[in-house]
């Protein structure tokens, strides 16, 4: 099954180009240039990974990350940062980001992280299903 990725960056040309290259590598890519739209899309659809720009107009990337994780804790978010600062990256990890990549991103590195995100999400979903099953088995008296 193809990896489902949501790209979020206010630079349209960037998301279009990156999306095209990722699609050519077999990924199923959706993209948006708006932070508010990203929150809406992430609520309506499921993704294996969200690649999110740290500095967005209307809403800071860390703010978007907080909102995404509050709504869907299993979401795997990779932050794209234009800053060469470790502090922001550390802050992002503390808020639940899976990883961060500095711009300009190397597609091979990003792809590797996306695959890791997919694997991690699968484990989390499986664990959730297991917990649900265990809950049913212990609470229902069959």
């Amino acid at each position: 099954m193809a990896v489902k990725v949501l790209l979020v960056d206010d630079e349209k040309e960037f998301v279009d180009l990156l999306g095209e290259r990722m699609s050519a590598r077999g990924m199923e890519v959706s993209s948006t240039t708006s932070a508010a739209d990203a929150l809406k899309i992430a609520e309506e659809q499921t993704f294996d990974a969200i690649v999110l720009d740290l500095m967005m107009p209307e809403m800071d990337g860390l703010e978007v990350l907080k909102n995404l994780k509050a709504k869907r804790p299993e979401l795997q978010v990779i932050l794209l940062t234009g800053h060469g600062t470790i502090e922001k990256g550390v802050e992002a990890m503390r808020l639940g980001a899976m990883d961060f990549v500095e711009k300009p991103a190397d597609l091979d590195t990003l792809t590797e992280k996306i695959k890791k995100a997919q694997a991690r999400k699968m484990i989390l979903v499986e664990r959730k299903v297991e917990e649900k099953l265990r809950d049913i088995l212990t609470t229902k008296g069959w």
Partner: protein
Amino acid sequence: MVSLLDTASVEGLRFFGRISASISHELKNTLSIMNESAGLLEDLALLAEQGKGLDASRVKSLGSSIKRQIQRTDQIIRNMNRFSHAVDEPLKEIELVDFLEFVLAVSRRLTAAKGVAITVQPTDQPLMVVTRPFFLHSLIWLLLEAGMGQTGQSKALTLMPEKIESDISIRLMGLETLALEAEKSFLPKQGEPLLSLLEAKIKMDLDQKVLILILPKRLKDEPRGESASTTS
């Protein structure tokens, strides 16, 4: 004892860092687009080597994209260069409309992050001012930063420079939520030394929802605060 110039310089340095970080972010963005364009060209070349054919129009559009980003990067670097050289001459004659447009150009990313559109109203005649450009830039940014939180629903501000008698004023318009209590607190404390150093004054027109920055047309060489040191 700390001089007025020293106090203003600390704020100036903070402002310089903020703008430099914003410019570096913009440069990273243009580099990212060029990086992806180049990567896509490589992808297309690889496909062509495998006998998949080469879409000439796609190659051409990628070339145009790279050219566009080079021009954009060049403009960002020009602005960065002009911004860096603002500290070279402490006192300089500037044309105010051109200066205000430059202020907006280097802080576009920061204003866009707040979702506020800021414009400069042009004047019929050039408005020449002898001032301290770097400190004026710092002061205007502090006012814009405060003003962006006062636009209400409109999310728009206008800077209107004009000549008033022997002075020059810059009207900051569009402050929809400007209230009486803002008169004393609109400019943050760190802006006060800048105001003194530029011999500027701030007035508010609460009915019109406008802040007016008044500057002398020709600032004198010796900053007033240099001879009279301030304590901090």
